[in-house]
């Protein structure tokens, strides 16, 4: 008997209801499939078992990629172009999840990847644009290295997790505009988590239109203080810019206002944010 035949017999004896179609999809030839490594293995080290566990995360990625910037033809719709872009986003997110088992995929990562991919894909040099997927991947990894902890549930209550980042925003606001801070958090009882969670984890990508996002990101990514510090200053500036309305508002109106932030002059927003740095030095 050749090894392939042995594998086949062992395979059949351990799995009564084998499904031909299932293992024929395997890329490995039968002789290379060891006893512990087959599509129906439940072993913890089985790459197959892992593959099926990953299916759930891939479905989640698929669902979210399809609803990334639904108002833009670049990302959304049934055109060949949109589909190929969705495919690229999916690939990047799946590879990231596979390479970072401690983080995996968290809803919202699609929003962070989207501007990166968009910029690379729209490079006027076609040769560069052809590598948009790979370029976006490496920049995404680099960007997330500074923001990863916000996505990790186990770190939610640690000093590096999302809660403590939100607390830092709250402190920054208190430092620069104590009256507004008091009205928001003490008087109208708006827990900053109710709005800042999305602002921070998504780097403001759901708060503004796409052109404005790119404008803000240029600043986030180029500031010598790094994206996280810069982001907190921009968030703080967002609050201060609408302080009049916030000071006049109650819980409901304030939360609604903060959850759908009004259109604003981005250059001015960034100017105000920048001033917070000068003061705190």
């Amino acid at each position, binding site marked *: 008997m050749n090894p392939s035949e042995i594998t086949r017999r062992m395979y059949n004896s351990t799995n009564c209801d084998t499904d031909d179609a299932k293992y024929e999809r395997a890329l490995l030839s039968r002789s290379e499939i060891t006893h512990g490594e087959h599509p129906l293995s439940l072993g913890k080290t089985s790459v197959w078992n892992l593959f099926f566990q990953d299916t759930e995360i891939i479905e989640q990625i698929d669902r979210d990629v399809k609803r990334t910037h639904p108002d833009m033809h670049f990302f959304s719709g049934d055109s060949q172009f949109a589909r190929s872009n969705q495919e690229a986003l999916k690939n990047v997110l799946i590879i990231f999840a596979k390479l970072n088992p401690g983080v995996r995929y968290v809803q919202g990562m699609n929003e962070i990847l989207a501007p990166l991919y968009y910029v690379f894909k729209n490079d006027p040099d076609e040769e560069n644009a052809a590598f948009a997927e790979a370029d976006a991947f490496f920049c995404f990894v680099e960007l997330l290295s500074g923001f990863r902890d916000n*996505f990790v549930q186990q770190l939610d209550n640690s000093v590096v997790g999302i809660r403590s980042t939100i607390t830092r925003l709250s402190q920054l606001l208190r430092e620069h505009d104590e009256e507004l801070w008091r009205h928001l958090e003490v008087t109208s009882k708006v827990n900053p*988590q109710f709005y800042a*969670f999305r602002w921070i984890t998504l780097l403001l990508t759901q708060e503004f239109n796409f052109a404005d996002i790119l404008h803000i990101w240029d600043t986030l990514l180029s500031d010598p203080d790094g994206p996280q510090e810069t982001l907190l200053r921009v968030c703080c500036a967002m609050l201060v810019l609408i302080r009049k*309305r916030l000071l006049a*508002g*109650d819980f409901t*109106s*304030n939360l*609604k206002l903060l959850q759908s932030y009004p259109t604003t002059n981005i250059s001015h927003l960034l100017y105000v944010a920048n001033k917070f740095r000068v003061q705190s030095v």
Partner: protein
Amino acid sequence: MHNISQRKRTLLKVIVLGDSGVGKTSLINQYVDKKFSQQYKATIGADFVTKEIQVDDKLVTLQIWDTAGQERFHSLGAAFYRGADCCVLVYDINIQKTFDTLNNWHDEFLKQADTNDPEAFPFVLIGNKVDVDGGNSRRVTEKKARNWCASRGNIPYYETSAKEGYNVEEAFFCVAKIAQENEHVQDIFFGGISESVSEAEQQQQPSRCAC
């Protein structure tokens, strides 16, 4: 706003939970704005809307919290769940898994919401997307869903289509009704910025919601 004086109204806080993609945001938007879109962005953290309705002779404000479906966001729930008067569980009748996770959502909510009397806390179950494929892709029978509701202390059950607006109004009226029995009367300042959703609506609704 026309009325600056403080008025005592009933504020009902409602939390909407369920797996990603079952249509929580669509249901809420259909209910509040009478609109449906194929493509809502994924909800991150929690979104917040209000709607005023008349229940019996009382004007109540529903404060509806739309939550993120992915498990990662569960641990952040406590801040949102606190003070809730009713919890709406949503699943997709075409996807078995979204029904199987209802126990988790139910128990996790009670664990985190810190309610006075967990046994009596009001839930409503919504089976959404009955319009899909003319009902031919249904995976969870109505009977199965009703059995689950019975086993969890007679939770009212509604099957809806957020897309077609089918049964959505009825489901949320029931939510308001049973939330009110659990009511928290609070002082609400009506001032500042008004939103289009806050118009009071007179509604003709069936007077009871148990089904």
